[in-house]
């Protein structure tokens, strides 16, 4: 089994990376937007970082090809709500200071 894995890693490295890359934006989305519930506990800098990560993610989702048009539509909306909430939390933090 280990030999097979080794051979595959030599022969199909590109394939593995492609598959990973296609889901990469989703992993980032899950990591970034999975923290909204704790947003008010984050510091101003942490919130700014999360907002920046949302902004970086947006063009990556926008770039999804037409075969993923539906996913693009749904996730752009979800990302917007997530980003808006971090911006809201940031505004609240700044007001408190």
């Amino acid at each position, binding site marked *: 089994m280990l030999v097979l894995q080794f051979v595959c890693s030599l022969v199909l490295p590109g394939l593995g990376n492609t598959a990973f890359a296609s889901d990469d934006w989703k992993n980032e989305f899950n990591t970034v937007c999975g923290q909204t519930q704790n947003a008010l506990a984050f510091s101003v800098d942490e919130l700014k970082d999360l907002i920046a990560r949302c902004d970086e993610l947006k063009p990556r989702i926008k770039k999804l090809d037409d075969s993923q048009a539906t996913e693009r539509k749904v996730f752009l909306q979800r990302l917007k709500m997530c980003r808006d909430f971090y911006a*809201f939390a940031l505004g609240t933090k700044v007001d408190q200071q």
Partner: protein
Amino acid sequence: MVRKVFTLLPLLLCLQAMFVTAGNFPDPQSFGLVILKNYSPRAGVAPVIFDHWLHRSLFTCRLCHLDVGFAMEAGETKINAALNMQGVYCGACHDGKKTIGGKTIFAACAEQFSEEEVKRCARCHSWKKQGVREITFDAFTKKLPVGLGKNIDWEKAGEEGVIKPLDFLEGISVQYDTLQAQQDFSIASEADWASDVIFSHKKHALWNGCALCHPGIYASTKAGTVKYSMLQIFEGESCGVCHDKVAFSLFFCQKCHRNPV
């Protein structure tokens, strides 16, 4: 004097509406019902009846309106069969594979189907059709607690564990961190005929999470920054985004204005 008239205006409107609908509070069965007819008539099928009472007993509001992506306003999502078949919106659950309570959730739409399978279409495309729904309101809600106006008391149903709405859908939802307890607070009432509102942030956050309400519906956390009148709420703003449409009716004043004046 003028101020007093304005203060009493919501009460008068409320009373007027109550007289108009006297003895006719929202029908529990059709409360929260959404008819989807963006494309169905053109496709030659009956419009879809979406029952909130069925779905909200199974899922939190957040799961459907944030993770799955259904708009909060009826008709805004523009759902069609193709989208469902791609595994989004209704198709996020209705894919013929996912299970709930040990039962497989039927697939929402299909390009090809047998004559026998047409019956499945009618499970949703059932507007103005009698006897085609598999799950009926009376049978389904028999065990659910009944509250004001014979409407289902969802709050109680949740507290008693009669319903356990899912908040996570594999492959769709984000694995959220545990929600920190939110503090309840009171909202001052300007009318002298109604007590202050006791707002349960905890209960609302449990159903909705955070991002469903903030900042879209409530753009500020500072108490008193934005003031909403009952008129605005009846127009569908603030609490009115959900209440009187899906969440309990605005005519049940004492559900929010809990203390006697």
